[in-house]
């Protein structure tokens, strides 16, 4: 079996694997050293009763998982987290693509525009989120002030004060933080599609939308899948936004799984429960990744 230019594939296989392992070794070693122990530790802790100093006491088996599965509050948090991640990632991706397309267009001031779009990402997240909390403020915030001045709304809501508006407000800030990253990723992806392919399409007389469908989109599909997958993982685990804006309030109505984990570990010192909840997160995100990888690897085989 030969590849496109006649180099026999079989001969390369043995050397290939060795080379691959050598190239991967530093990364794999680093991850093993710094992530393997913590992850295993989290799992182990979930199987033991813990004291407040996170020291394990007596073996408890999977009892805590049973308790969590039966806990209604727990499922509410999980459901909310799923809503959070699905809405968040979809919106970020959409905005990201739109902005990438806009930034890809040549016009005066394009370079400045690119610079400006990066600002939300360039700023430290805790501080940006605090800034948003200030913007959302009923008395001092310029958001409500602007809405009133422009006549859009005479009585804007107390954004972070009611369950639904608080959740939406948190979602928006999380989306807002993630958009520049998505835009940049897609912009880079679009730039990496070789120009020759477009030229070939031009020669074949393709229209603009045909070029988008048959050249651009396939070229960036790999990135699209990876970016949205990673975004899903990060969005699900986005701690800062909800915690700084509402601390999970009011009355726990904006708690997502990661803030719930934080609350159980650093505030309530219930390390066993927090670890179990982290494993829940892992399971949920594994399922998500599995679904993605089926699509991704199926593509690769094509």
């Amino acid at each position, binding site marked *: 079996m030969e590849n496109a230019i006649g180099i026999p594939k079989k001969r390369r296989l043995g050397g290939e694997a060795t080379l691959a392992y050598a190239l991967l070794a530093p990364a794999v070693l680093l991850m093993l050293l710094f992530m393997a122990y*913590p992850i295993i530790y989290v799992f182990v802790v979930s199987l033991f009763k813990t004291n407040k100093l996170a020291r394990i006491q007596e073996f408890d088996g999977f009892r805590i998982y049973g308790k969590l599965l039966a806990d209604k509050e727990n499922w509410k948090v999980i459901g909310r987290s799923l809503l959070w991640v699905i809405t968040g990632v979809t919106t970020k991706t959409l905005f990201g693509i739109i902005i990438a397309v806009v930034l890809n267009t040549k016009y005066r001031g394009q370079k400045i525009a690119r610079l400006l779009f990066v600002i939300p990402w360039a700023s430290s997240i805790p501080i940006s989120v605090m800034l948003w909390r200030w913007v959302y403020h009923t008395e001092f915030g310029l958001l409500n002030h602007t809405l009133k001045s422009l006549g859009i709304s005479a009585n804007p809501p107390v954004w972070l004060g009611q369950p639904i508006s608080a959740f939406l407000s948190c979602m928006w800030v999380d989306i807002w933080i993630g958009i520049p990253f998505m835009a940049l990723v897609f912009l880079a992806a679009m730039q990496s*599609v070789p120009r020759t392919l477009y030229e070939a399409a031009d020669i074949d007389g393709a229209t603009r939308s045909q070029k988008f469908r048959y050249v651009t989109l396939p070229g960036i599909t790999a990135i699209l899948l990876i970016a949205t997958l990673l975004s899903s993982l990060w969005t699900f685990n986005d701690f800062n936004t909800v915690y700084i804006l509402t601390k999970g309030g009011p009355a726990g109505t904006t708690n997502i799984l990661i803030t719930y984990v934080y609350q159980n570990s650093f505030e309530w010192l219930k390390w066993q429960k927090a670890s179990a909840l982290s494993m829940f997160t892992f399971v949920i995100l594994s399922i998500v990744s599995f679904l993605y990888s089926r699509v991704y690897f199926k593509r690769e085989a094509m």
Partner: protein
Amino acid sequence: MLGLGYTNTNRLMKTFAIVLTIILLSIMLFPFLVMVVSMFKSSEEIYHIPPYWFPQKPTLQNFVTVWHTIPLASFFVSSAIIAFGAVILNTMISVPAGYAVARLNFPGKKTILYAFLVTQMFSPVVIVISLFKIVIGLKLIDTYISVIVANAVFTTPFVIWMLNGYFSGIPKSIEDAARIDGCSRVGALLRVILPIAAPGLVTTVIYTFIYGWNDFIFSLTFLQTQDKYPLTIGLYQFVGRFAVRWEELLAGSFLAILPVLLLFFFVEKQLVSGLAGGAVKE
């Protein structure tokens, strides 16, 4: 538009793009517009009800206070050390790894890729205590290197996956052509693939830089001496127990964003280098 490179943009589309840009920027930069006007306000103006946009008595006092109250320069240097350190470490180990998964076939590829992904499912919040124990065990507490490594660890999987995607998006024919010309694998990587994937590489570098520049939890946990604190921790001092010193916080945060923008300004050209397509003729 529509991702077609620089071909076929006409007047109408340019105008449309500009209008869309202005609308989107107004939405995206709203809080920063608030930041920029507020950092020139004194306390009385910031806490005025009803609030207003432009300061009536603009003052530079906040910047002066920030400069005198906290060792801003030291914070800047620390942030830079952490950010650049993370970038260097990450790039050195991720580029080879990314190439390996993108171009080579070997048993366990899927497993390794998946394993990298697994690490992204655990937020720093969850594992920071274990990491703290490791850092203490390695006697690396209160060193930059512990923070750099932690940041590199959390950004490496992403970079590898992204490089995998960017490298894969480059048709193999281009690389094969170079190898037929006598290039070694490494040569092909450096002279053919990386230039074409430059936009992607730059993106991952920027990502890692920003991640390191804005690191909070690792600096907070691993660093103990004030003169090693980066900007994120340093500025957080203005968030007190009973009140937030917005005047200084905004001024300081503004200064903290500037270097990132500067960096972006320098590398932005690589992002849109348009080297794509010309490589084969090289």
